[in-house]
C-alpha cells in the first residue's frame, strides 16, 4: 500500500488550488497605487552605432513621465558574468561591459537602448514607437555565424575584442597529448560534426518587473520573475546599481516557469528601480512574447566536432571534441560556465573511457545572449556522446545495447574519478538500461516495425544512456573553476509557539512543487501533520541567503539545508525535554512526534516542547536560549549524478519526412524519491522539451541578424499532439552517498537524455527503410531536413 503522506508519498500539490482557481499571484497580476508603465525601446538592427536619440520627440506626448537612455546608466556598473574562465594559454576571458541600456552601440536585435515611462501602458507603447522612429542608428554589418565571427577580425561585436572570442578553453589541457596519442593508436576513429540547435526557453509567463522606492527610508523593492531573488539582489547591488544590499528587497512571487531563463539578472530590473526612484512612483514592466524571444537568454547553440577512438568490438578508448559555443552579444550570468564546466566535465558520459579532451571556443555574435537552459551544457555533452556512440555502432555493425553494456561503468567501480575531473559517487547504469529495455518492450520492436511498415511508415528505435552532474554545487570546487559565488543553500525552520512550522528556504519554486514536497519531509522527520508546515520562499526580506533553484539543486542542496536545520531543532528539543522530564539529555529519544525518556513511558509531544520554548516557565534558561528556530547552511560535498536510459520510437513518413515520436521510455536513477508524482511530472516535462529540441524547435537568425522565429507563429513549440504518453520509471535507485536525503535531482534529466534518443531513432528508421546513406541529420529533424536527407 503506497504511503499517502510523508517521504515517498505522491501527495497532491497544495499550490494547485490557487493556480486552478485563478488566485495565483504572478508579478504582472499586482497592481500598485500610483503605478507607471515602462516600455523598452529595442534595436531593430543587429549591429549598429547609436548616432542620436531625440528624446524631445516624446517628452510632451500624452502621459509620458520620463525617458531613459544608455546615457543615464553609463556611470553605473555592468551586469557581470558569474564565472571567470581562463583560456588554455592561461589568459583570462574577455568580459565586455553589459550595460543596463545599450550605450554607444546596439549589439543584437532587441537590445534595449531606451525606455519610456508613462501613465498608461498604451501611452508608453505609443511613445516608445515614436522614440524608435526618432533614433538614428548607423547600421554595421551583422556578425551572426560563429565560425565566421572568429575568423574575421575586421568586424567586432565589441570594439575592444579583436577576434570576437571570449575564451578558448581546454579541458583538461594537461591530458591533451595523451588523448591525441590514444586517438592515434585507436583501431577505429569515428567522427561526427553536429549542431546543438539554439533554443528559446519560453517559460509561459513572460518576464516582468516592478520597481518601488520609498523616499522616507531610502529602501527599494523589486518584484520580479526570478528563480533566485537573493542572487538577483546581489547582482543588482554589488555589480550594477551600487545600492547597499540591505536597502533592496527582491520578491519573486508566483513565477510561471523558468527553465534557466529567469536565473539571470536583466537590465529591465535595474531600469524599473531607477525609474521608481526618479518618479517617486512604482514603475512596472512586462515583456510581450516577442520581447521574450528577442531578449530572454537563449539556450544551447553549439557546433561540435567529436571524435571517438574505439576497438572493433566497440570499446571506447578516447573522446576528443572541438566546440564553438555562441554566447551572443553579451555575457549573461552563467554563460561562461554552461559550455565549460557544465559541459566539458560530462564528456566521459557514463562510460569507462580512459582518455577525454574537450576544447571549447566561445564566440560573441550579434544575437541574443545565450545561457543555461534546462540541462545547461549537459544536454550538449550527452547529445554529442550518444550520437557518436550510435554512429560507431552503425559503422562497425555493432548492437547499440551491447555496446552500451560493454562500456558502462559497473557498480563496483564507484566512486569513480573520470578523466574530466568529476567523481561519480554511485550508480547502477546496467540496471536502468535493463529496466528501459523491459519497459520499452524492445523484444517486440520488430512486430511494431512491421505494423508501421504496413501503414507505409518507417519505424525506428533510438537509445540514449545518459548521466549528468547536478545538485549545483560544491563551493570549493566551483571556486577553483572560476565561480564568483558559492553555491550552498540555506533554510530556517521556525517552530511557532503553537507548534506549527514555517520553513524559510533559499530555493524558489516556479513549478517544482516545493510547497508540497518540503512539508512532506518536515512532517515525516518531526512526526507531525504536513498541513501544519508552511514553506516561505521568494522574498529576500523573509528567507535566509540562498541561491535559488536551477541545476536540479532545490532538494539536493536546499532540501539538505532544511534537513540539517530540522536536526538542530530536534537536538534542541531534546535538551528542553530532558529538563521538563527530569532526565539526562542522552536518555531522550525522538520518534513519531514525541520526545521520550528511553525505556519509560515519560514523554512530551512536539507541541508541548514548542510551547515550552516560547513560554519558558519550566525551562533551563541558565543554559539554553528560549525559542525554537534554527538555520542551517548546506554546502554539498560533491555534485549529484542522476543517470538513466531512454528509448525512443519514431515513425517517419517517407513521403513528407515528418517525424512522429510514437513511444518514449525513461528508466532513471534519481536516488531517493520524495514525491513520485512530482518526479514523474518533472521527467515528462523534460522529455517534452527534449522532443521539442529534437523535432520542432529552431531559433533562426538570418544573415542580417534578424530573428526569423520571434513569435509562436514561427517558433514551433511542442503542443499536445506532438508528443505521446511517456513511460517513466525511477525504481532503479542508488541513493546519493553524500547528502542526508540521498537525493540526486530530477528537474533536467528529461531534457538531457532525450534528444539523442530521438535522433538515433530517426536515423535508425531511415537506415532500416533503406536510406543507408543518411548518417546524421541536425536537430530539429524537421520534415524538410528529413526529406532532403532521404532524397539527397
Amino acid at each position, binding site marked *: 500500500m503506497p504511503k499517502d503522506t510523508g517521504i515517498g508519498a505522491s501527495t497532491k500539490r497544495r499550490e494547485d488550488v490557487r493556480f486552478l482557481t485563478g488566485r495565483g499571484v504572478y508579478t504582472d497580476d499586482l497592481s500598485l497605487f500610483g503605478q507607471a508603465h515602462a516600455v523598452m525601446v529595442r534595436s531593430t538592427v543587429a549591429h549598429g552605432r547609436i548616432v542620436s536619440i531625440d528624446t524631445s520627440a516624446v517628452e510632451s506626448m500624452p502621459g509620458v513621465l520620463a525617458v531613459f537612455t544608455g546615457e543615464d546608466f553609463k556611470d553605473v556598473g555592468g551586469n557581470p558574468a558569474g564565472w571567470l574562465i581562463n583560456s588554455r594559454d592561461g589568459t583570462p576571458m574577455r568580459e565586455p561591459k553589459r550595460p543596463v541600456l545599450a550605450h554607444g552601440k546596439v549589439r543584437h536585435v532587441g537590445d534595449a537602448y531606451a525606455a519610456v515611462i508613462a501613465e498608461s501602458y498604451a501611452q508608453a507603447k505609443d511613445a516608445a514607437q515614436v522614440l524608435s522612429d526618432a533614433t538614428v542608428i548607423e547600421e554595421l554589418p551583422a556578425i551572426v555565424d560563429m565560425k565566421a565571427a572568429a575568423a574575421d577580425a575586421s568586424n567586432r561585436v565589441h570594439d575592444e575584442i579583436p577576434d570576437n572570442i571570449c575564451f578558448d578553453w581546454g579541458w583538461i589541457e594537461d591530458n591533451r597529448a595523451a588523448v591525441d596519442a590514444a586517438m592515434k593508436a585507436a583501431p577505429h576513429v569515428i567522427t561526427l560534426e553536429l549542431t546543438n540547435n539554439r533554443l528559446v526557453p519560453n517559460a509561459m509567463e513572460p518576464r516582468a518587473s516592478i520597481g518601488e522606492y520609498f523616499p522616507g527610508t531610502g529602501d527599494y523593492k523589486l518584484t520580479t520573475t526570478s528563480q533566485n531573488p537573493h542572487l538577483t539582489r546581489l547582482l543588482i547591488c554589488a555589480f550594477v546599481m551600487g545600492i547597499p544590499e540591505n536597502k533592496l528587497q527582491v520578491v519573486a512571487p508566483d513565477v510561471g516557469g523558468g527553465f534557466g531563463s529567469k536565473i539571470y539578472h536583466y537590465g529591465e530590473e535595474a531600469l524599473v528601480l531607477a525609474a521608481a526612484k526618479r518618479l517617486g512612483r512604482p514603475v512596472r514592466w512586462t515583456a510581450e512574447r516577442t520581447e521574450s524571444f528577442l531578449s530572454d537568454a537563449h539556450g544551447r547553440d553549439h557546433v561540435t566536432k567529436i571524435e571517438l577512438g574505439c576497438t572493433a568490438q566497440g570499446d571506447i578508448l578516447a573522446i576528443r571534441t572541438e566546440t564553438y559555443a555562441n554566447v551572443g552579444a553579451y555575457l549573461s550570468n552563467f554563460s561562461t560556465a554552461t559550455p565549460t564546466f557544465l559541459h566539458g566535465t560530462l564528456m566521459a558520459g557514463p562510460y569507462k573511457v580512459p582518455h577525454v579532451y574537450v576544447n571549447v571556443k566561445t564566440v560573441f555574435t550579434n544575437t541574443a545572449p545565450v545561457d543555461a537552459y534546462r540541462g545547461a551544457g549537459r544536454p550538449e555533452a550527452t547529445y554529442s556522446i550518444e550520437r557518436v556512440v550510435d554512429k560507431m555502432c552503425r559503422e562497425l555493425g555493432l548492437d547499440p545495447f551491447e555496446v552500451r553494456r560493454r562500456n558502462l561503468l559497473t557498480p563496483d567501480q564507484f566512486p569513480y574519478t573520470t578523466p574530466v575531473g568529476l567523481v561519480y559517487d554511485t550508480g547502477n547504469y546496467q540496471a536502468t538500461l535493463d529496466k528501459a529495455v523491459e519497459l520499452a518492450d524492445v523484444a517486440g520492436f520488430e512486430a511494431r516495425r512491421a505494423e508501421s511498415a504496413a501503414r507505409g511508415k518507417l519505424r525506428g528505435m533510438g537509445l540514449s544512456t545518459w548521466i549528468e552532474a547536478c545538485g549545483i554545487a560544491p563551493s570549493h570546487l566551483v571556486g577553483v573553476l572560476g565561480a564568483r559565488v558559492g553555491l550552498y543553500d540555506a533554510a530556517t525552520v521556525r517552530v511557532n509557539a503553537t507548534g506549527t512550522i514555517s520553513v524559510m528556504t533559499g530555493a524558489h519554486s516556479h513549478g517544482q512543487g516545493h510547497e508540497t514536497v518540503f512539508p512532506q519531509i518536515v512532517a515525516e522527520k518531526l512526526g507531525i501533520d504536513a498541513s501544519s508546515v508552511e514553506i516561505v520562499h521568494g522574498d529576500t526580506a523573509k528567507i535566509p541567503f540562498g541561491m535559488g533553484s536551477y541545476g536540479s539543486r532545490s532538494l539536493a542542496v536546499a532540501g539538505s539545508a532544511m534537513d540539517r536545520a530540522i536536526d538542530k531543532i530536534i537536538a534542541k528539543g531534546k535538551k528542553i525535554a530532558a529538563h521538563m522530564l527530569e532526565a539526562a539529555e542522552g536518555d531522550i529519544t525522538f520518534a513519531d512526534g514525541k520526545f521520550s525518556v528511553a525505556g519509560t513511558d515519560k514523554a512530551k509531544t512536539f507541541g508541548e516542547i514548542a510551547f515550552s520554548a516560547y513560554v519558558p516557565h519550566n525551562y533551563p534558561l541558565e543554559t539554553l536560549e528560549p525559542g525554537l528556530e534554527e538555520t542551517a547552511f548546506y554546502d554539498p560535498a560533491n555534485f549529484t549524478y542522476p543517470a538513466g536510459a531512454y528509448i525512443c520510437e519514431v515513425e517517419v513518413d517517407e513521403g513528407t519526412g515528418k517525424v512522429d515520436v510514437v513511444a518514449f521510455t525513461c528508466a532513471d536513477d534519481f536516488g531517493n524519491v520524495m514525491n513520485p508524482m512530482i518526479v514523474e511530472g518533472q521527467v515528462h516535462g523534460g522529455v517534452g522539451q527534449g522532443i521539442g529540441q529534437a523535432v520542432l524547435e529552431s531559433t533562426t537568425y538570418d544573415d542580417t541578424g534578424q530573428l526569423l522565429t520571434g513569435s509562436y507563429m514561427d517558433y514551433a513549440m511542442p503542443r499536445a*499532439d506532438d508528443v505521446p504518453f511517456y513511460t517513466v520509471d525511477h525504481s532503479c535507485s542508488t541513493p546519493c552517498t553524500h547528502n542526508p536525503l540521498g537525493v540526486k535531482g530530477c528537474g533536467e534529466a528529461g531534457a538531457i537524455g532525450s534528444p539523442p534518443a530521438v535522433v538515433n531513432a530517426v536515423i535508425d528508421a531511415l537506415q532500416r527503410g533503406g536510406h543507408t546513406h543518411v548518417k546524421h541529420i541536425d536537430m530539429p529533424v524537421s520534415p524538410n531536413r528529413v526529406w532532403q536527407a532521404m532524397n539527397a
Partner: protein
Amino acid sequence: MTKVTMTVNGKSVSAEAEGRTLLVDYLRGGLGLTGTHVGCDTSQCGACVVHVDGKAVKACTVFAMDVMGAEVRTIEGMANADGSLGLVQQAFQDHHGLQCGFCTPGMVMTTAALLAENPRPTEAQVRHGLEGNICRCTGYHNIVKAVLAASGQDADAIAAE
C-alpha cells in the same frame, strides 16, 4: 473611454475601456480578474482562454467592446458553488496536470469547452483539442490524463496502452 458592461461569472459588471482595450486587459486591469493570463499576444498559447456565451475564446484577440452585453466566464468562475474545485479543476489536481500554473487557467477553460462539445473524447481528440494551448512544464502527459479523467474515462489505463 467608454463604459463597457457585460456579465462575468454570473455578475453584471462594468468598467471603462478604450476602443483598443482587449478583453483580457479589461478582465485583468478593469475588473481585477487576474486569473486569465497573457502568454503570447498572438492567439497562439491559449493562456487567456475564457468562455464568451459558452464558447472558448482567446481573450487577447477580442476587443472588450465587441463582447459588450455577453456572458463571460473566467477561471474565477469555475469552482463549485461551495468553493470546492470544479470537476475539471479537480481532475487537473488529481493527475498533476499543472506545474507552474501559468497556462493552467487557459487549459481548464479549453478543457471545459472541449468536454461540453465532446463529452467522451479519445486521446487523439483531446490532444487535437488542446492544440491551441501551450504548456512548457508538463510535456502534456498529465494534462491529457486530466482531461480524459474529467470525461469519466480511466486515464491511467488509456495512458498505459
